[in-house]
Every structure is written in structure tokens, then in C-alpha cells.
């Protein structure tokens, strides 16, 4: 193998240019920062007001063209025997709070995290936090790797394993089309007892605080989602501590913090990989020369 030093230097010189432009393109997406700008929408779910009528489930199915049944069938409370999970054909489920004796229910769906782990994980950017607050999914980009499902701390995305050719990741879309027009999501609109309040995140945190203040006997003093996982767009009030019961116990660090730090550390303007390349190149050439001498 005969290579001149000039070739070596020429090739090295062209690399940083090509790669730094690549780096800036690749890293232009900053998931999460969008949501904290105040204009994004949120929902406050107050589980003490939830009557377990499951009409929100019906409304969601209806809005999203999911398989649906007559609205009267949703009065069936036998489903509360189990803790159900959102599915490919159910973006939201109402569950009984397991740690309480009386029938007290809570609605779950995608939390629309401010720093969504699913979006940070997605290899092609099919999942995205939009300015309106919704974390949306683009099936046309998706390759079906299901890394988003591994990443989500709330175990929300469901996969159409039964679909042979065009399986999709399925989850609550926050009714993004309505949200973009400033309208309430279908489930919120449907609720007969106003268990869910729609507004901007800052407003809703105030609402939640004042409710807890006015009725300290009714609430466990914590807004789930205010800080969990770096904050979520769906916020929860309840009579019990939801951390470690209906929802996971999470720190205030965004879930993707560690991976993104490592990732951007390794690829800091491509310096580390190029340094390694140079180092190995120098080693290869100098060790070879020594052999000859």
C-alpha cells in the first residue's frame, strides 16, 4: 500500500467542511423547547371530578375514526376491574384508581411531554412536538423500529402488529387539527362534568394551584405533570399521590437528557470522530515509516 502524505492531508482537510454542515443540519431540531413558550395548549384533568362515564372514550373513537360502539355501551363499569392501557384502537382509557376503595376514576392518554422521549428517540423525526403542544406522528416517515415505544416512560405508543404491510404507531394526537384552530380536543369537549379544563399551560397551573388552595381536603397537594419528566402538556390533580400509583415516579429531568448529552458530546461539531481519525492516521503512517527505517 503506497500512499503519499499529501493525499492524507488533502482528504483530512475536506472532511471537517462536509461534516460540520451535516452536524448543523442534523441537530437543528430541538424537541421540547417549543412547548415552553407559553402559547402551547394544555389540559388539566381533575380526577376528583371524573364520574367514570367514559363518554370521552366514545368521543375520541368518534373523532379519530376508531372502531366505535353505541354511546350507551360505554356506561358498562365492568371494565374498571382491570387497569386498561391505551391500544391501537383506543387512544384513551378511563381507569379506576386501584388504590382507592370507592369508584374513583382517571382518564389516561399520551401526556404530550414538553421534552418527549418518543420524539427524541425517533430515528426519522416522525414524532414531533408541535408549537400548539401536540406530539404528532407522521406514518409516512416511520420505519417501524418501535424505539419510540422503548423510550416513552408512560408506556403510551401502541403498535399495529396485526397490520402486515403498513403498521402504524398509534397514540392520542391531542386532536392536533382542532388544537391548531384553538379548539378543545374532542374528549375535553364531551366531558359532562368538566373534569378536564383546556387552556395554556401557565393558566392551567394557576387553576390547579388555586383549586388545591381552596379545597386542601379534596386534593393531594401535587400537580402531576408540572415537573415530571421535565413537564407534560397534560396535567393531573387527584385525591391521591399519582406518583408511583397510577403514574410512574419520575424526576424533573427530561427523559432524553442523558442520551442527548452523550450523543451531542460524541458529535460536538464532529471533532471527536475526526480527532480519532487523525490520530489513527498519524499512527498508521508514522509506525509504518519506522518499520522501513
Amino acid at each position, binding site marked *: *500500500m*503506497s*500512499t503519499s502524505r499529501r*493525499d*492524507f492531508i488533502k*482528504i483530512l482537510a475536506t472532511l471537517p467542511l462536509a461534516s460540520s454542515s451535516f452536524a448543523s*443540519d*442534523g*441537530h*437543528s*431540531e430541538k*424537541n421540547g423547547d417549543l412547548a415552553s413558550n407559553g402559547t402551547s395548549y394544555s389540559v388539566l384533568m381533575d380526577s376528583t371530578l371524573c364520574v367514570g362515564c367514559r363518554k370521552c372514550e366514545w368521543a375520541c373513537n368518534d373523532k379519530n375514526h376508531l372502531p366505535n360502539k353505541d354511546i350507551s355501551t360505554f356506561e358498562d363499569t365492568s371494565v374498571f376491574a382491570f387497569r386498561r*392501557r391505551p391500544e391501537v384502537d383506543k387512544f384513551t382509557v378511563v381507569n379506576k384508581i386501584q388504590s382507592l376503595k370507592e369508584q374513583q376514576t382517571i382518564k389516561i392518554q399520551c401526556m404530550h411531554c414538553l421534552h418527549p*422521549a418518543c420524539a*427524541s*428517540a*425517533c*430515528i*426519522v*423525526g416522525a414524532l414531533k412536538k408541535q408549537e400548539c403542544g401536540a406530539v404528532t406522528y407522521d406514518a409516512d*416517515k*416511520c*420505519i*417501524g*423500529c*418501535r*424505539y419510540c415505544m*422503548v*423510550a416513552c*416512560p*408512560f*408506556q403510551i405508543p*401502541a*403498535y399495529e*402488529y*396485526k397490520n*402486515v404491510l*403498513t*403498521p402504524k404507531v398509534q397514540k392520542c394526537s391531542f386532536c392536533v387539527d382542532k388544537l391548531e384552530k384553538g379548539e378543545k380536543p374532542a374528549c375535553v369537549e364531551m366531558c359532562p362534568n368538566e373534569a378536564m379544563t383546556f387552556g395554556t399551560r401557565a393558566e392551567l397551573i394557576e387553576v390547579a394551584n388555586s383549586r388545591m388552595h381552596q379545597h386542601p381536603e379534596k386534593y393531594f397537594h401535587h400537580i402531576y405533570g408540572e415537573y415530571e419528566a421535565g413537564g407534560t402538556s397534560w396535567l393531573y390533580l387527584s385525591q391521591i399521590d399519582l406518583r408511583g400509583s397510577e403514574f*410512574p*415516579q*419520575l424526576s424533573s429531568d427530561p*427523559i*432524553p437528557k*442523558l*442520551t*442527548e448529552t*452523550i*450523543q*451531542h458530546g*460524541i*458529535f460536538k461539531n464532529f471533532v471527536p*470522530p475526526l480527532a*480519532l481519525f487523525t490520530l*489513527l*492516521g498519524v*499512527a*498508521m503512517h508514522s*509506525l*509504518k515509516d519506522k518499520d522501513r527505517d
Partner: protein
Amino acid sequence: MKARPLNIPFFTPGVWIVFSLALIGASAYLYRMFFGLAEATNLTNSYPWGIWIAIDVASGVALAAGGFTSAALAEIFHREKYHVILRPALLTAMLGYTFVVIGLLADLGRYYNVWHPMIPTMWQGNSVLFEVGLCVMAYLNVLYSEFAPIVVDRFKGKVTFKNEYLRQKTEGLLTFLDKFFRKILWVLIIAGVVLSCLHQSSLGTLMLIAPTKIHPLWYTPISPLLFWLSAVAVGYPMVIFESLLASKSFGIKPETHVLSSLAKIIPFTVGFYFAAKVIDITIREAWPFVGEGSLQSYMFIFEMALFAIPLILLTQEKIRQSVRGLFISSALVVSGVVINRINVFLIAYHPPYTEEIYLPSIYEIAVTVGLICALVLVYRFLTINLPIVTIEDGE
């Protein structure tokens, strides 16, 4: 001493068995393609990743580390005596990565979109998987380009077309390719090592996106470092393991002196990895989890033992000199890395809302076994037809 095609028959009774397993795997693969993931796998919403990711992809990439570790040794640090292992190691790496991609395609729900990460508008620099994907793809290209000279070497000066014009043109092209690849080979070699370091470590970053789901024995910020160290550690044992297997199957004398001196390096690489694991567990005060008596704790002890035993064995000169000792100790390191990858991707993974557990389906197992068998067959076919293996005593 020059590598040349082996003069042995392709089929033997053993090869027929491997061939049948590969066929069964191929049928299971087709089954998945025609009937979908739900029919073929036991994957669920709580366990989105199974053995196709843990074994076919994660372990597959790790076991192909023989390629970059031996290239670094023989080509960058110019330890010339190891040149004989270069071609077999390169072939294993090339086939290893090829089969990683084939396995991955079975797992992807929309496999026909696998090229999407290459399109700049879909680049997602925050995604660890994006980096792994691009590096693997780039490395695959590097491996094929590094392998091309071997194919050229086989046919250059031996083209036997009847048509003289065609023969000359083909020879001309081959000579050009030969020169071209020789000229850029050094770039490919270094790029291969850099790309390997990047994605071998990034595979260890993947599961760090699930802090609440991964068991504390494996959830560590230095996971990428551990993955890289273990890839380096498994490189030479894998070369020894397959070289001994191949020489047995091909009925040729093993290169014991080269392999023995290669084995001298292993206690250092495995030792480094083992020490890093121990220090990591100590600093994170995770030792109590080792004794908690769960499946996770037993699997951790098992994994560590698979490194500790060969680490001790290979410090003995006598064991390094014996074919059996070499084979057993390198097989242990190889299994250690596979068990580690299974642990990180499956055993450590605990979704918050589920009582069920994941066990692979019969189809998943058939595909995984089939891919390994198919790799062995292609390896055999190529060593029979291309100059890969160096045999000591002339004709």
C-alpha cells in the same frame, strides 16, 4: 504464503444440517413477511423489542468487532504477523453486518422505509438510533469496499472470456479497480475503525433513553464506554473462535502460533472491560442489586462469570498454547458478550404497567437460528471460491 480458495467440497453431512436450519429460518422469515409481526412474533406494546434486536442486531454487531479490531492491529499498528487473520475477520465482519441488516428488516414494521434515515429532511440528530443506523450503513459500505480487492485478486489475470475484446476490457477494469482500491485502502481502514468505535459505543447508549425501565445493574451513564470496551474485548476471541471452528470444518491445520499470540492480548482487553464493570457497579453503589435474588441479578452474575473465567484461563501460557484451551476461553468471551447484550436489551427491560413477560416465539427463534446458519453457509461458500484463508504448507 498466500491466501487462496480452498479445495474442499461444499456439502458435508454437517453442512446439510446447517443448510436445513437455514431453510427453516428462511420459511419463518417469509412467514413474517406475509402474515405480519403479530402472527410471527410475541412482541407487544409493553415489549416492543425482542430477540431480533437483542441477538440478531445488537449481538450481531458486537460479534463482528473482529473486523475492526484486527484491522487496527495489523494495518494501523502494523503487527505484520497478524495479516493472515485479516481476510477471515473482514469476511466475518462483512457477512455479520449484512445479516444484521437482513435481521433488522424482519423486525422493522415498515422495512421498505429503511432508507429514510439517509434523507437529510428526515435526519434526527437527537436520536441515538439515527447515529447507529447511519454508522452501520456507512461501515457496511466500507466493509464491502475493503472486501472488493479480494474479489478482484481472485479474477485479475484469470479472466477467461472467449471474446478477446471483452476479455481485455474486463482485465483493464480489474486492473483499474485494483489500483483504485489499493490507493484508498488506508482511508477505508481508518474510517472503518472510527465508524466501529462510534456505533459500537452508541449501541450502549440506546437503552439509556428508558431510565425508568432499565434495571439499575445495567443503567449506567458509562454504558456506551462499556459497550465499546466489550466490543474490543470480544474482537480477538471471536477471530480465534471462528478460525478454530473453520479449520476444523475445513480440515486444515489451525494457525495455532498466530492465535496463541493473539490470545495474549485478550486478558488485557477483557480485563479492562471487567474492571470497568466492577468500578461502575461500585461507584453507583449497585452491589446490593447483585444479591437481590431476582432473574436480573442471576443473569448479571452469569454474564460476569463468562468474562471472569476466560480472563483467568488466558493468563495461563499452557492454555493459550492448546487448541482446546483457546477454543473454550474464546467461546466463553463470545457468550459473555451475547449474554450481556441480551441482558441489556431484554432482561433489564421492565415496562411499568405490565405483569406479562416476553418470551420469543418459535418463528423468532427460527429466524435467528436460520440467519446464523445462512451466514455460516455463505462464509463457507466464499472461502471455497475466494482467496480468504492462508494455508501454511503450499499446495
